[in-house]
């Protein structure tokens, strides 16, 4: 299959030694197998995320994203802009919608961009990595490179909020998206299809500011995964991943629970299924070890038929 090229927008959390470093690592491995070339947008900046609202005014948050679009258009013309982080993708898409529907805002944004010697033309579509996988490849294609089906592992597909609402993945419902389950099955794992917390909010940024309230959310999300006899949770969102994984110890302290549910990225599942090593899959980047996945990763790949 021909090489596919995309302008890559990793976002602040998916940088080396950042909270979602392992997302970045596994994504690159996955893309290698799928023959996807991700070229980071030169000198990209933060999207502002949803949480910056109190500080950043509407226009200033808009121009942050406009700058990334402009950079992408200038340096990587004709390539779709692809984000792995839910917040980045949402922030970018919301901004793009405003820029493309509101002429006034667009003019203002460009006036500001001029200061940075840039201009937004509205040529570049903004997409999430999951969209790329499903729309540009499709489950069948994604299944082909599987050499190590993730047999014997049951995954609770935790979609969360911002990859799901308000835009979501085309053809999926807000209340009951199925693409994670489909991806899990594509790589030979078992999906916990009855997992009813799949779109529950983990508290997002409020995990920092409203710890108690967020941790209550996270507790439900994890416990419901246990109810479904899941071995681990899989998610497309770095903030979900971080929140749900790292606070389990805190929750255990507070509620006397014994939660130890690994939380992984779809990209890690695919990397392992494609024969990638623990390191290539970023499985060394976990606080709660996804042992079963690591075991498969450590097994030697079966000889190609």
């Amino acid at each position, binding site marked *: 299959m021909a090489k596919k090229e995309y302008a890559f927008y990793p976002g602040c959390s998916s940088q080396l030694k*950042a909270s979602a470093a*392992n997302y970045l690592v596994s994504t690159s491995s996955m893309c290698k197998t799928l023959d996807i070339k991700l070229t980071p947008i030169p000198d990209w900046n933060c999207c502002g995320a949803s949480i*910056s609202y109190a500080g950043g005014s*509407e226009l*200033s948050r808009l121009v942050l994203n406009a700058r990334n679009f402009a950079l992408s258009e200038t340096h990587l013309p004709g390539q779709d802009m692809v984000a792995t982080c839910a917040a980045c993708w949402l922030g970018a898409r919301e901004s793009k919608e405003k820029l493309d529907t509101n002429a006034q805002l667009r003019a203002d944004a460009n006036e500001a961009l001029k200061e940075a010697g840039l201009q937004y033309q509205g040529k570049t579509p903004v997409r999430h990595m999951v969209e790329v996988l499903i729309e540009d490849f499709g489950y069948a294609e994604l299944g082909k490179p599987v050499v190590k089906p993730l047999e014997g592992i049951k995954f609770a597909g935790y979609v969360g909020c911002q990859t799901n609402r308000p835009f979501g993945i085309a053809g999926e419902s807000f209340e009951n998206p199925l693409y994670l389950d489909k991806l899990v099955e594509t790589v030979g794992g078992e999906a916990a299809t009855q997992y009813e917390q799949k779109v529950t909010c983990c508290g997002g940024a409020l995990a920092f*500011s409203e710890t108690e309230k967020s941790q209550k959310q996270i507790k439900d999300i994890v416990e419901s995964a246990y109810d479904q006899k899941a071995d681990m949770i899989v998610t497309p969102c770095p903030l979900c991943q971080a929140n749900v994984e790292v606070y389990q110890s805190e929750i255990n302290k507070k509620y006397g629970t014994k939660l130890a549910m690994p939380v992984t990225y779809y990209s890690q599942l695919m990397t392992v299924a494609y024969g990638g090593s623990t390191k290539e899959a970023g499985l060394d980047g976990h606080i709660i070890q996804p042992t079963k996945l690591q075991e498969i990763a450590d097994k030697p790949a079966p000889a190609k038929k």
Partner: protein
Amino acid sequence: MSELNTSTTEKYHNNFLREVEENVEEGEWVKMCMQCGVCSGSCPLGAHWAHPPQELFMMIRAGKREAVLSSDSMWMCTSCYNCVVRCPRKLPITGIMHGLASYANKLGMAPKIQPTRDFSLQFWKNCTRTGRVNELRLTLGLYFNDGLMAGIKKGWAMRNIGLGLLKAGRLNPFELFKGHSCKDQQGIQAMLKKAAEIEARRKHSTH
């Protein structure tokens, strides 16, 4: 009452709805609410809202300026967008909540102690400083927001998490000194400065 606040109240002589429409991001949508309450029921932290969105909208129409702007409620928004996708009138409720919060903050009417407000401000400061978020500074910044001792306490409480991330290679101690950043920081600053100017200009032209 901040100066800005006094002047605005005079300008609108108690027509708070119009004030919101003209000053709050997405504020022009408030009038379209039909009080079905689906937003209020959809919020993950709903139980912690003194006034859920639909009620805030009603209060705005009823001119309850003080009660709305000094409320804790909109700061409870986790940006999950449940309300947005379910609203039968397609109101961008998440945006309105952010807008109200940000407006309340601008007027100095937001609650004095509001961790989310603090975090939000920290985040903006942090990400615009270098163009990229410095996670360590962000977290520490938040902890030390209420002073040194408080910060150390919180930090201590969360030490396992910090250490865990550190072990996992997902937290970089050196970020404290030199973290991720953009090259063209000047450009970014200039750009943001311009944006601020433009917005100020617009405000004038609208009234």
